[in-house]
Every structure is written in structure tokens, then in C-alpha cells.
């Protein structure tokens, strides 16, 4: 028996291990798309998804039927299946089966290409008596032969792991009795009350002492009957007052009678049973700075202790009612002994399967009869081993293979069309976020002529900061979630506008008080009646207006907003004037050296070090939508679920600063004096775009600024048009101007559950020089990161680019992938019954586990494939760069992303397969060719293959093969 101290350590260790399985999502107000299986990234992808699916009772891949549909539709080809099967067999070995009559490969290919029916004995019996399906096999003698064959071997008893929680053991014996159905409503209510960020009128008393202490205070009194099963709860809670929760958990593990060697499993299963809430508690324990309003001491150990205590009470109450002893420890042993074994399929079912397989691979009745017993067993075993999960894994690999080939083919063919930009100075350069949604905006800009060049970088533009806008009440971090900013930037009214600003502020405060008072008043007793009587008829006006005339209302509101907002001209305090830190430990503004470093870093990253255009626009992005708890999921991932406009604005200010330019010039990076940077922000939902500080643009650049506005207006209209092809509620032949109005209305429609599709369909990330992919239609499916291999001799820039892009890109990609594969377990299901709770998350309906992941309405059009990371660099540099960043190395080594090298030397494309780069052999040597994107996507709703958009090509066109 280990000492109590050791056992406490054990519990902590188990708890830490279990915490890795929890969803990585924090409060929903700042939604950062992350891999739902982030805790499994230290294991190979194919293994991890299968293991996770067992733990969470989730799906590892899409349903087989959907892959078969893809096969039928040509999205997967049989060549893909054969290729992945061969790769798989290279590991397993391709043995002969059925006495050499068939091979493993034949068997597996047949099972992949043709569906077989799995039935239980009763269904087979029904088929035999009620239908003529098996008549032909009966006549040919195959069916009787199979029946005789399976009679030779006894049906297998499958050894499955005995569950460890009482709840699962009880459920296996009494399928209608679920102790979680008793415990969860109470536990959910308590967790919600504990974490609440301001929905409830009264906060939970004593919650500043932690979950279990607060519950012990509130529920430990002598107030009369709660639900029947929890009648002994007050007494139990009084007993643990002041006890450390690890000790409580330890005591409960013992009382439940679970032996030491299985307590890790018990803790894991108990935590995972309510993993949304447990995950939130864990996330807020790790990052208390992410509490939106009020911090409370959130501890996973408290949750575990409370959960085990409640579980034990429920079991103690239930056991006698099921005819068991009410001692949980004795009960555990008894339940384990009585745990029903999982039986394999019965003989009729086995015979049916064998019969179908025999037909598929061409074994006749005589062949079956001639098999020896061990050959038969081996055949049956081979069939059983190639079960649904294995088949779906291969289907998935084939699905990804086809996508990879199509994309790499597109790049390879495009290579012959693309040419580097001409030597003369471009008119306009536009730097946007690497976001897949910016791909179309950039393409539509480039289609306007070779004078416009675009670049992509992580959308916080290397400006990690806390930002407080003029209308914000506190500063929010704008940088990737893994960083903590050390600087704060504030927005202020310009000199002379302060009085106006104060007036507005007062007005807003007054209106805010009125609205807040009405909202909270409407729930109270006496004020509620008054509010209802007064505000009810008034509420009818916006209700009718918003539902019946959403577009008109939104225009009206926007106009009112514009009146209110843009009156006050503002400036940003980006420069540091004092080194004294602020109250939160950050410093106000950046010093000139830091500014120069930031500008240098971004320009180096994207390879913009010569040929500066006279006007360089830097555009961040965010998304505005209404009635959408997941609004933040559409914002910029690189800004940690915030909006990147301020970062772009700050970057432009820094890059325009003459002192910064002087320092850059001293370090060898000369930005021409007549080059002006201007910051902007794009709304990916309404396709609106605004620019900041344009009044500081010198008079000589006015015409260029007007040209920028014109170019952006054209591009965003076409961007809206391209997006509309995905929206079922936009007509197929919609005109561009109408499309822009359509997306504007979506952004402000209360009833719209799909304001935009976010990152759905993302599949590729291209890190490299834009000219190599410019003019290639990538269907808003590619993250585009600018990187110039010629400007990165030692690979340092590639390493830091991958360090930023790898986790963000794969996080988004895997978040969408798993939410699409299992929308209910990894995603948060349909939005329609969602119910915001505690301002930290959503539940389904009245009381459910906290729903994490992305909603179905966001991922429904997503095609789940792992991110294909194509890097414009030689193989060796990629290896070195990826190997030098541990998080990227893990993603690459364990195949959570696929990597391809697009060698600048022109050696073509190669992709990483099992640790080595294999040359990509193009299957198709031509690409469709259109003048403009719209010609290619017009009339199509689904994903489109790459095509050459000639209008976007630069420089002299070379003669190319066309389709």
C-alpha cells in the first residue's frame, strides 16, 4: 500500500493526464479555433483519432457511406484506394488467404470498392424467410457452403475492456438506468453558477473559495428535501468542509471501491463524462486572465472531487433499488463480475458476411468447401480485421490523396504560366492576413492588373498588443493566443475633439444605462411589470423592423452608427513616453527600436525588401454578425479571436515613422521616402473595408489613395459575389452589386445562422512567393503566407514563419475537420437550440454539457482533409526549419499536417511520406483557363478544382498547354 502522500501525487498525476483529453476551448467570447484533439498531438494522427474516438464515443472519420458517395462521385478514385491500400499493405504484408486462392490485397480492395451488409442473426433469418436475396446463393450452393464453413469454428467472444465507472457498469446491466442522468443536472447547475460571468442576478455565495467549498457552504445547510437521490448530500458536504479536494477525490476513489491500478481510468472517464464543463474549468485554471468579467478560483481537482462525491451518492441511492447491496465498493466488484461479455456475431451473421465476401472475391462453393479449418479461420479473421474503422481510415487517406494530387497538379501546371513580377515599381501593394478568406479578395485585386501586388502574413502583423479602442471599456489582447502582449495601445480623440467625445460618451452612457436597466428590469418582479408595459409596445418596432425588413433596418442602423462613430476623429498612442509599467504590467506604447524591429520583421517575413510601391496598404480583418454566440470564431485567429484592424493601423503608423525608416535604412532596408503605408480593416462577413488615418496621407498621394479605394471596392464586390455562390439563399445568377447587398444583409440579420462560412473548406497552406501561385484559382481554400526563399539564406525566417503558421493553420484546419467529422461530439451541433450560459459558452437547450467546437452551420460545407502545407523552399531547409520548432516538428512528424516542398530551384514538387520526401508525379498536365474568376465559379455551389485566371497573371505570358 503506497503512502497517502504518494497516493495524493498519483491522483494529481492522473488528473493532469486526464486534463489533456479535455477540449482546449476557453470562454466563447474569444473563440480560437483549435484542434479538438490537441492533447493527442504527441501521437500519430491515425492512431490518435481512433483512440480518441473510443474515449469520447465519437467518430474517428466520416461515415463510410459518405466516402462511398465520394467514390461514386469521383471525388475518390479507385486508383487512390489502391495506392493507399498498397502503402498500408507494405506495412502489414500481403499474405495469401484461403489456401492461396486470394490475397489480402484482393480481399481488402474488394471490401473497399463494394459495400457489404453486416446483419445480426435475426436479420439474416428474416432475409432468408421473407426475401429472395439469398436465393441465388442458395441455388449456387455458396450459401450452404458458407453455413457449413462457419459451423466448424465457434463464434468468438470479444474481449473488451470492462468499464471502470459504476455508471457504465450499471448501464451495461440495466440499460434504462443512468446515474449520470441524476448527477449531471445538479452538477451542471453548480458549475454554471460557479463560473457565471454575469447572467444571474445573484452571484453564487462563497464562490471566491472555489467550486467544492462554495457548494459545501450552499448545499451543506439543513434545508429540507432535495431530489431523492441527493438526500444525503448535505451531510456528505458537511463532512468534507475544509478538506483539500485531492484528499476528497482520493477518499471517494476508495469508497467507490476502484482498485489503485484502475483509478487513473476512473478519473479520466469521470472527467470526460462532462468534458465541456470540465474543460472550461481546466482552461480557466490555466489561464485565469481569460475570465471575461470576474475571476473565480477555478480548479479541475475541485470538479473531480465534487463529481466523484455526487457519483457515489447516486450509486448508493440507486443500488438497493436495483437489487444490489448499497456498499459501492462491494457493488463495484459484483458489477465487474457480472459485466456482460460482448459477443461476436452469430453463425448466421458470419455466414452472410463470408458469403458476400466469397462472391466479391470470386470464391465458389467448391472453394469454400475445400478450405481447411485453419484456412477458414484465417479468412474469417482477415475479414473481421478489416473492419469499418480500418476501411474508413483508408477511405480517408484516399480522400486526402485525391485532394493532394489535385492541388499539387494545379501548382505544378501553373508553374509554367506564372512568371516573376516585372522589374518596374508596382502601383499598389496590399498586405493582408494569411487567412483563407483573403485568398479571393487578393485574387480579385490581382485580376485588376499587374500593377497591384499582394502579400500575406499572420494578421496581427507582428504587433502583439493590448488594445483599447475609443469605445472599449478595457484593453483586449490582439495577438495569437499563445502570446502575452507586453505593450498597450490606446485610441484617443484627436486634439480639439475631446469635448465632442465626452459629450458622446455621456450620451452613450445614458442610453446604455437605460438599455441595461430595461434588460435587467424586465426580469424582476415589480419593475418587470412596468418595463413590460412601457417597453413592450416599443420593442415591437425593432422586432417587426428587424425581422421583416432586415436590410433596411441595418442600413438605418449603420447610418445612425456612422453618425455616432465617425464624428470623432481619433489617433493611436503607439509611442512610448514613459517606461513605468501600467497597472496590468504592460507598457504604454512601443519605443522606436521595437517599432523598427516589428516593421523589419514583417517585411523580412514576406520578402518585401525592394521594389516598394508608392502606396502600401496593410489590411487586418474581423467579422460582425448578429445573434451569433460564435461571432468571435469568424474573427482573426492570429489576433486570438479579435479583430486585426488596430494591428494593421499600428503597423502602418510604425512603418511611416521617419525615425523607424532611418533605423531600417541604417540596417540596410531602404524604404523609399515617397512610399506611404496605410492601415485598414476588412469585415469578412459584410465585405466592408475601411482605412485609417487617411488624412495623414500626403497630398501627392491623394490620387493613389483614391485608386486604392476604387480597387478595394471592386475587389470586395467580387469577393461578395464569389462568396454568394456558397449561400443557398443567394440566387445562383446574382449580380455582383446585389451580392454585396446580400452579404451586408446577412451580417445584420437577427435570423441568420450562417452569417458567413468562416474557414470552412480550408485545406491548403502555401508558404512562398506570391508570384508562383498568383493567377491560380484556389477557391478560398488556401492560407497564403508570403515568404521569399531567396531572402532567407539560413532558414531562420522559414523557421519563425512555420512556428507562427503551423499551429494557427493546423489549429483552424483540425478544428473544422473534427467538427465536421463528428458534429455532435467534436463540434457543438446545430445552433438552433443553443443557449448561452454564464457568458462563457453555449449549452443545448436547458441544461447540457457545455458545447465546444464549431457549430454545424459553420462546417456543413467543409471537406475534412488535413492541412496540406506547401512550402516554397528546398527539402533540406524545410527539414531543418520544421525540426527546429518543437511544436511544428510534432505536428509534422505525427502527420497532423501534410507537408510538400515546392522547390525554388525548379525540381518540382515533392511531398513528405513516412519521413522522406517523395517526388510528386503529376497526373494531369493541363489546367482549365479562364479570364476572370467569375467565369470559373459561375453557377457552381460546390468545391472547385484549380484553374488559371489569366487576368491575374503577371508579366510576359509564356506559351502554355491549355485545356
Amino acid at each position, binding site marked *: 500500500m503506497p503512502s497517502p502522500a504518494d497516493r495524493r501525487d498519483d491522483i494529481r498525476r492522473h488528473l493532469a493526464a486526464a486534463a489533456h483529453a479535455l477540449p482546449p476551448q476557453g470562454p*466563447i467570447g474569444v473563440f480560437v479555433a483549435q484542434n479538438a484533439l490537441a492533447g493527442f498531438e504527441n501521437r500519430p494522427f491515425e492512431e490518435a483519432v481512433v483512440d480518441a474516438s473510443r474515449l469520447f464515443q465519437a467518430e474517428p472519420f466520416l461515415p463510410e457511406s459518405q466516402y462511398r458517395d465520394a467514390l461514386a462521385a469521383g471525388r475518390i478514385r479507385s486508383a487512390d484506394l489502391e495506392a493507399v491500400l498498397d502503402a498500408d499493405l507494405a506495412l502489414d504484408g500481403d499474405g495469401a488467404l484461403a489456401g492461396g486462392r486470394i490475397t489480402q490485397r484482393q480481399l481488402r480492395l474488394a471490401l473497399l470498392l463494394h459495400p457489404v451488409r453486416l446483419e445480426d442473426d435475426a436479420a439474416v433469418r428474416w432475409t432468408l424467410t421473407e426475401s429472395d436475396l439469398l436465393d441465388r446463393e442458395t441455388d449456387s450452393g455458396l450459401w450452404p457452403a458458407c453455413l457449413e464453413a462457419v459451423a466448424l469454428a465457434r463464434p468468438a467472444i470479444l474481449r473488451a475492456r470492462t468499464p471502470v465507472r459504476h455508471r457504465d457498469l450499471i448501464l451495461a446491466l440495466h440499460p434504462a438506468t443512468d446515474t449520470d442522468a441524476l448527477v449531471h443536472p445538479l452538477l451542471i447547475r453548480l458549475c454554471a453558477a460557479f463560473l457565471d460571468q454575469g447572467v444571474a*442576478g*445573484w452571484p*453564487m455565495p462563497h464562490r471566491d473559495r472555489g467550486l467544492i467549498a462554495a457548494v459545501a457552504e450552499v448545499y451543506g*445547510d439543513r434545508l429540507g*428535501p432535495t431530489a431523492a437521490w441527493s438526500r444525503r448530500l448535505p451531510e456528505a458536504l458537511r463532512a468534507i468542509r475544509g478538506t483539500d479536494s485531492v484528499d476528497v477525490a482520493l477518499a471517494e476513489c476508495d469508497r467507490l471501491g476502484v482498485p489503485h491500478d484502475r483509478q487513473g481510468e476512473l478519473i479520466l472517464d469521470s472527467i470526460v463524462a462532462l468534458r465541456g464543463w470540465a474543460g472550461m474549468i481546466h482552461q480557466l485554471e490555466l489561464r485565469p486572465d481569460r475570465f471575461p468579467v470576474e475571476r473565480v478560483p477555478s480548479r479541475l481537482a475541485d470538479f473531480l472531487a465534487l463529481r466523484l462525491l455526487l457519483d457515489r451518492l447516486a450509486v448508493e441511492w440507486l443500488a438497493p433499488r436495483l437489487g444490489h447491496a448499497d456498499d459501492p465498493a462491494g457493488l463495484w466488484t459484483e458489477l465487474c463480475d457480472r459485466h456482460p461479455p460482448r459477443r461476436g456475431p452469430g453463425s448466421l451473421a458470419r455466414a452472410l458476411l463470408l458469403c458476400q465476401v466469397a462472391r466479391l472475391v470470386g470464391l465458389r462453393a467448391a472453394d469454400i468447401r475445400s478450405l481447411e479449418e485453419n484456412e477458414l479461420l484465417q479468412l474469417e479473421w482477415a475479414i473481421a480485421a478489416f473492419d469499418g474503422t480500418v476501411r474508413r481510415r483508408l477511405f480517408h487517406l484516399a480522400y486526402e490523396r485525391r485532394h493532394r494530387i489535385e492541388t499539387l497538379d494545379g501548382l505544378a501546371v501553373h508553374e509554367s504560366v506564372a512568371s516573376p513580377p516585372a522589374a518596374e515599381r508596382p502601383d499598389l501593394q496590399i498586405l493582408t492576413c494569411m487567412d483563407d478568406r483573403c485568398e479571393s479578395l487578393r485574387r480579385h485585386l490581382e485580376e485588376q492588373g499587374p500593377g497591384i501586388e499582394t502579400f500575406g502574413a499572420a494578421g496581427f502583423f507582428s504587433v502583439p498588443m493590448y488594445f483599447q479602442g475609443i469605445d472599449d471599456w478595457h484593453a483586449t489582447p490582439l495577438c495569437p493566443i499563445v502570446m502575452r502582449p507586453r505593450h498597450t495601445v490606446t485610441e484617443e480623440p484627436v486634439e480639439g475633439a475631446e469635448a465632442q467625445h465626452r459629450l458622446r460618451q455621456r450620451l452613450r452612457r445614458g442610453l*446604455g*444605462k437605460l438599455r441595461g436597466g430595461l434588460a435587467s428590469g424586465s426580469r424582476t418582479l415589480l419593475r418587470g411589470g412596468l418595463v*413590460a408595459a412601457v417597453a413592450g409596445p416599443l420593442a415591437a418596432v425593432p422586432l417587426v423592423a428587424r425581422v421583416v425588413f432586415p436590410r433596411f433596418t441595418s442600413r438605418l442602423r449603420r447610418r445612425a452608427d456612422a453618425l455616432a462613430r465617425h464624428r470623432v476623429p481619433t489617433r493611436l498612442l503607439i509611442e512610448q513616453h514613459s517606461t513605468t509599467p501600467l497597472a496590468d504590467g504592460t507598457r504604454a506604447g512601443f519605443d522606436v527600436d521595437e517599432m523598427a524591429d516589428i516593421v523589419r520583421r514583417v517585411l523580412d517575413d514576406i520578402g518585401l525588401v525592394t521594389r516598394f510601391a508608392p502606396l502600401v496598404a496593410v489590411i487586418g480583418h474581423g467579422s460582425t454578425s*448578429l445573434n451569433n454566440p460564435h461571432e468571435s470564431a469568424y474573427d482573426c485567429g492570429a489576433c486570438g479571436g479579435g479583430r486585426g484592424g488596430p494591428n494593421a493601423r499600428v503597423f502602418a503608423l510604425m512603418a511611416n515613422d521617419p525615425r523607424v525608416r532611418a533605423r531600417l535604412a541604417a540596417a540596410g532596408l531602404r524604404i523609399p521616402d515617397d512610399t506611404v503605408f496605410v492601415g485598414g480593416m476588412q469585415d469578412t462577413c459584410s465585405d466592408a473595408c475601411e482605412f485609417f488615418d487617411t488624412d495623414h496621407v500626403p497630398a501627392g498621394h491623394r490620387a493613389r489613395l483614391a485608386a486604392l479605394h476604387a480597387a478595394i471596392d471592386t475587389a470586395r464586390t467580387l469577393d461578395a459575389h464569389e462568396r454568394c455562390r456558397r449561400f443557398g439563399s443567394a440566387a445562383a445568377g446574382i449580380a455582383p452589386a446585389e451580392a454585396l447587398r446580400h452579404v451586408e444583409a446577412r451580417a445584420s440579420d437577427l435570423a441568420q445562422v450562417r452569417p458567413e462560412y468562416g474557414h470552412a473548406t480550408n485545406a491548403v497552406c502555401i508558404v512562398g512567393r506570391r508570384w508562383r501561385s498568383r493567377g491560380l484559382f484556389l477557391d478560398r481554400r488556401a492560407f497564403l503566407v508570403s515568404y521569399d526563399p531567396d531572402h532567407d539564406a539560413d532558414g531562420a525566417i522559414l523557421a519563425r514563419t512555420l512556428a507562427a503558421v503551423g499551429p494557427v493553420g493546423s489549429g483552424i484546419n483540425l478544428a473544422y475537420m473534427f467538427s465536421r467529422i463528428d458534429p455532435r461530439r467534436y463540434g457543438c451541433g446545430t445552433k438552433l437550440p443553443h443557449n448561452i450560459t454564464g457568458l462563457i459558452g453555449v449549452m443545448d437547450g436547458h441544461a447540457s454539457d457545455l458545447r465546444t467546437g464549431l457549430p454545424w452551420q459553420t462546417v456543413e460545407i467543409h471537406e475534412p482533409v488535413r492541412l496540406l502545407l506547401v512550402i516554397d523552399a528546398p527539402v533540406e531547409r524545410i527539414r531543418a526549419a520544421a525540426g527546429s520548432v518543437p511544436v511544428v516538428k510534432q505536428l509534422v512528424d505525427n502527420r497532423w499536417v501534410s507537408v510538400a516542398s515546392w522547390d525554388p530551384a525548379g525540381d518540382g514538387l515533392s511531398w513528405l511520406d513516412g519521413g522522406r520526401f517523395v517526388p510528386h508525379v503529376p497526373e494531369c498536365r493541363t489546367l482549365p483557363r479562364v479570364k476572370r474568376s467569375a467565369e470559373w465559379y459561375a453557377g457552381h455551389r460546390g468545391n472547385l478544382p484549380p484553374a488559371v485566371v489569366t487576368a491575374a497573371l503577371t508579366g510576359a505570358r509564356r506559351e502554355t498547354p491549355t485545356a
Partner: protein
Amino acid sequence: MITDRLLSGLVLLQVAAPAATLAAVGLPAVLGITVRERGITRIVGAGFTIALAAALAALGILAARGFTPHNVHMGTWFHVGHHEATVDLVADALSIPFVCFSTGLCGLVNAFAGKYLHREPGFTRFFILLALFGTGMNLLVLAGSIDVLFAGWECVGISSTLLIGFFHDRVAAAAAAVRAFVTYRICDAGLLAAGVVLHAATGSGDFERAISGGWPGGTCLLSPGTALVVALLLIFAALGKSGQVPFSAWLPRAMEGPTPSSAIFYGALSIHAGAYLLLRCEAILEAAPLAAWLLVAIGAGTAIHATLVGSVQTDLKGMLAYASMTQAGMILAEIGLGWRVIPLVHVISHAVLRSLQILRSPSALHDRHELAAALGGHPGPDGWSLVRVLPPAVRTAVDHIALERGYEEAVIGRLVVEPVLGALRAAAAFERRVVALLAGDVPPLRRGGDR
């Protein structure tokens, strides 16, 4: 005479239009014909628009005639001796304004849901149920006899149940639907019994036979004893639908369906059906002061209970459900106090406000952020409330009571549900034993029975 016939036609249209859309959307679904989403919303929307136009026209005619009640006799279902079951509709100062408001709201929710439920597998089902609800609601409101009212009442009840359980794949939704259904069944017995008593007393279910004069201020024609019985039974019926103590536990759980149905049912119309029933029969209530005072007590009690419990709700829809319950309780208390126009106005304005709040409950984060920005900080917990001045120990106890939902379920469970279930199980066990005895094989008596 012509205006009479016109008015009758308009009243009939208010029920017939949504009923026709129910058939138009429901029949193809039954026959397995797929109708496009836009087609469905247009059909249902047209039904509500026609009904609304008819109601507004009727309101105009009625106003011109000084709100003299107008009865539409649609025939007699059956009659036995002195008893007859008539199918009557009535247009008066209560029913027509209420139809204007309820069809208007149904139309709005139809427009909202057309987008909200886009591509949802249960799209058609939702609109069939919405049309059924609209038909039932108008039937209930326009009913001139308790029999018609009962029919409307049941349509509202069944559509409510099926929409709570809209998501077939979720156990919680099904459980909540069953809970609401059981509550409805129990309380609907009150309405049915009230009908029986009315028939026995007057020989007809017609309100005209029980109440003379227009609304409000009619005179009850029943004997005081009968009036008391009928009033108590009607109150019993109203408690279930309006989610009043001790039948309130289903209401927060009803928030399992899609947001638009939660808004129209539990923020706006279904929850006020009880209030409407009592307003319709106000004269009977007037004649039974004891029942009226009981109604005041229950309404006020529910309002206090719901305020208390609502204060600790951490989810938006739960909080709004309790806020609705508070106002519904106050409205019933107002009716009990003998007010007429005030509760009617209260119903309509509360319904509009609450349904808007539920429809935009997914905006809570957005709204809170804007509010915090305007105020320069997050608004604290409610400014003044009684709980703030209580000593800490009492506050903790109050919090416990509120988190346990005022022990309503625990008490009902122990006093009613458990004994009833126990009796049923005992009966089942007894039956099994008797059957076994007859079959000649006596099993040992098992305690507790099958769970």
C-alpha cells in the same frame, strides 16, 4: 345584416386561413412530396397574413359597432336531449384584438424561422407545427363555446410538446417534451371537467348560456356553487399552460426546441393561454370570489417564486423562462383582482417584449459587450434587491432554495409523483401476480418492481 355576414366571414377566415396552410403544408409531407423551403414559408406566411388582414378588418367593423359581441354559429356537433355541443366563434373586444396580435406574432416568427431553420432536417415539420399552433391559437381565442376552446387548447398543447421535442436525437429534448406533455394532460383535465360541469349546468358549452353581456363586464348566469366549481377547474387548467406553481417545473425545461418556437410559445402566446382562458370566463370568476382570491394567491406566489429562482439562473433562456413566469403570475393575479383591460394590455406588451428577448438571446455576448462599453465597465449584479440586505447566512440559504428551484419539484415529487408511481407499480405487481396465479406459477414478490 351585410356587415354581420361580412364579420362572420372574416372571423371564419381567421381560423380557416391557418388551417388551410396546415393542410397545404401537411398533406404533401404526409404524401412524401418535398416542397421547397421557400414555398413552405410562403404558404404558411400567406395563411397568417390573410388571417391578420381578416382580423384587422374585423377589428375595424367591430370598433365601428362599438364592440358589440358578434357570435358566429357554425353548427351543432351533436345534441342529446337538452345537451348540445355547438361550434361557435365569437368576435368581441377581447378576441379580435388578441387575434390581431397573435397572428401578427406568428407571422413574424414564420418570417424569422424561414431563415433560422434554413437547411435544417426538420424544416417542414417545424412549419407544420407552427401552422397547427396558429390554427389552435386562433380557435382558442375566437372560441364561443368551451368545446371549441378545448379543441384549440389541445392543438396548442400538442404543437408545444412536439416542438419542445423537435430534436429527436437528443434525450433531454424528449424528456422535456414528455414532462410538458404530462403537465398539460393533468391540467387539461381541469378544462375538460369545467366543460362537463358547464354542459351539465346549462345544457350547452356555449359561453352565451353561462355569461350574458359583452366583454368585459358580463354577468354570470351560473349558480354560485357551480360558478365556484367551474372557476376552480378553469384555474386548474390555466396553471399548467401558464407554468404556474406548482406546475412550473416544465417551463424552463421547455427551452429545448429551436429558438423561434421557444420565443413564441414560452415568451409570448402559449404561456398566456391560461390568462386568456380566465379573461374569457372573467364573469364566472367574478361570481366566485373565493376562486378569484385563490388565483391572486397563486399568481403572486408564482411571481415571487419565479423572481427568486430566476435570479440564480445562469443561462439566458432559463432566465427568460423564469422572467416570463413572473409576469404570467402577475397577470393572473391582476385577473384575480378583477381587472380586465390592464391584464390584457399586460399580456400583449409582455409577449412582444419577451419574444424579442428570446429571439435575440444568442446576442447576449454582443449586447453585454456593447453595454459594458457604453457604461465603461460591466454592469454589476442587479442594482437593488432585497437579497443584498440579508445577513450572509440567510443569503446562502436563499441561494440554496433558489438553486433548488424553490423545492417545488422535490415537494411535488415526494407528495404526488412518488406515491402515484408507487401505487401504479404496486398495481402492476399485483396484476402480474394475479396473472401468474391464474397461469399456475407463483413468482416470489419483488420489491420495487422494474424501474
